């Protein structure tokens, strides 16, 4: 089933790779460059099926973005996957505390990415 997925990452490379992997799987991808842009994109897009976000970003980082989505938006029940190279437990924990649903460790393998999406979204 085609899902609408918002990807938030300040790296163009990562955005492009996500878009490639997700579009190949038939999903619709909305892209944002940082947390603040992500918030704006959500306001424009309404409900999305899954959100994938980076942690380290300018303007508003991933934690701030997740908290915003969880507490102030229409998408408070939307699954959020954190995409980051940080595999340290502290970072993961902080993202979880902010309300992240799951995580993907970069560099990701498209199959693992799709498996993670399947695990959080019908």
């Amino acid at each position: 089933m085609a899902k609408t997925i918002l990807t938030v990452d300040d790296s163009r490379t990562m955005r492009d790779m996500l878009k490639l992997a997700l579009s190949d799987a038939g999903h619709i991808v909305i892209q944002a460059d940082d947390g603040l842009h992500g918030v704006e994109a959500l306001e424009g897009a309404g409900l999305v099926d899954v959100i994938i976000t980076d942690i380290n970003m300018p303007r508003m980082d991933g934690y701030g973005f997740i908290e915003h989505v969880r507490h102030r938006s229409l998408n408070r029940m939307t699954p959020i996957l954190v995409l980051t190279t940080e595999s340290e437990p502290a970072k993961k924990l902080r993202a979880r505390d902010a309300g992240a649903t799951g995580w993907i460790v970069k560099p990701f393998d498209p199959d693992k990415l799709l498996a993670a999406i399947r695990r959080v979204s019908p």
Partner: protein
Amino acid sequence: MDPMEAIKQTYFQECDELLLAMEEGLIAMEDGVTDGEVINAVFRAVHSIKGGGGAFGFEILVGFAHIFETVLDHVRSGKLSPSGDAVKVLLRAGDKLSDHVAAARNGGGEVQDGDVKDELSMLCGESPDDAAPADMEGIVFTPIHVAIDDEPAALADSWKIRFAPRPALYAKANEPFLIVRELARLGTVEVCADLSAIPDLAAIEPDQAYLAWDIALRGCNDRAKIEEVFEFVADDCELDICEDASSAALEIVTLTPSPELQPAGPTPAESPPGEKKTAGASQAPAEAAAKQTIRVDLDKVDRLVNLVGELVITQAMLTQRVMECGQARSSTVGAGLNELEHLLRELQEGVMAIRTQPVKSVFQRMPRLARELAAQTNKQVHLVLEGEATEVDKTVIERLGEPLTHMIRNAIDHGLETPEAREAAGKSAEGTVTLRAEHRGGRIVIEVSDDGRGIDRARVRAKAVEKGLIAPSASLSDEEVDNLIFLPGFSTANQVSNISGRGVGLDVVRRNIVDLGGRIVIGSTAGKGSRFSLTLPLTLAVLDGMIVAVGDQTYVLPLSHIVESLLPKASDIRPLGSNGMLLNVRGGYVPLVSVGDLLGVEGALKDLSAGVVILVESEGVGRMALAFDAIVGQRQVVIKSFESNFRHIGGIAAATILGDGRVALILDIDGLVARCRDTAANHSNKLQQAIGA
């Protein structure tokens, strides 16, 4: 192109930007800025380079970036203070990282990390050897194929799983149904819901969790696989996974995953109280907000620039036609045309501005160069950059890098003295090189100045005499002596260094600048330093030209090549050989060429003394006098390429359309000279043949 290949291109483009941002941040840190956002930006840049690099399997790059990132993380968290020495290591690491990126881009090639990697490891408090295992992060695990069939291995393949979500699981938008569905991919699943905790309807809180499940899984012999399914929720539920030796049947419900099945979890309508943290708390300062930009194919912009150019010409034609019809400037039509002209000018400026970029992208490369040169020459150099935000056409920027690099090299290698010599001369041991850009009168001026020893005129002169570039008796002004260093053949080759003496002299710098329609001027004071000023046009799409007439033709001469214009007397024109002519210019002789003859224009003046002569300077032959019938005026013209629309013609650089709609050719001085020589050679050949016969 293969999509991954395209993304790889994007990655390298992005790396260039990230490396610039990193360098900028590191330089700010070197200047003592300890602002969190600056350090963060550097961290993010290195982090993104590492992240993308991992995706393309640039393991060496990722390994280096990882250590670098670890150190930056220490700086970011305050564990490591960015002191002078630490920042120097970071700067060197930044340079090294660019090398790694370049090596990855060019497909391999070893980069010697040398001491930098060790120094980084020291900074993050690891001994260099300890650092190696850290590179293991980011390795993608190879998925192991698990057979889900009915031939269970000897290993346990039956599991009893107790899964009782806590409210936090739902708050994070996890969904038990999906987890059970994942389990069903591993084998046969039998699920029994435990409804015992559900209170009376009135007591149900929407954001609490009341359901638990007992799941029997068969056909999976890998515990890790099962744990992976619960990876996201393990901390937010009671979970008990144990081998089921008895395979005793539970009170069984067979679950067939179907989309109609409603999510089992309660939906919190309101987030739990006490969790209402403000999102702003972790929001980075807004001052770091990047300008919104879009990427546009350069061809599209150029098409726009061309169109606007055409529009301006059409407007000029229209105005002229309307005036010819006897409409006054003050008439309503005239007023409308005035308004149109005004708007078009703004439109033209706006469109031209799209192609402009700050010179920063070129300037940013210079600090590294200065650091490397300082290390190679054992000099202390402080490079000051000013006016990095000055904007100029992209093409100009692209072609500015090489001359600037050369001039900075020149300033550090030849301009600055050694620290000892500087102190002996009463200056600070550290020499300053300033790179400054500014707009001045519709052009951009870039200055490279140093506070070194200045040009040693006696030595320059002696060398020029030695190389036979000037006569020993020549009397030259200081300025003329300074300009000798731009002569081809005035090589710096007897310098032992491998820095400036790369076989490329300042003559090449000057040629590059002149090709861009610019000029270069030197000022120097012995003992105080030298200053090179480059003056360049803001764009290459328009050109300042002198409009000249020959017979019924109109030509445009690039203003940057013109030295002066003269009204020659008949007595100043002297014949040379059978066909050549010389012009006496204040006692000196320059070759004189009639453009009408050279280009075969009909109706050109035969008597050159009745026309005008324009003295031009070209890199190839030095000065030369071109004879025309008359000067029409001076104006900016929009350049229309000849090559892309027709073909290359010697002596003609391009074409333009004048206000009256006529096409005028823009003369290429060097090409004209070459053409002139060919003609002369033909003549002398014919002459020789005639004599031989």
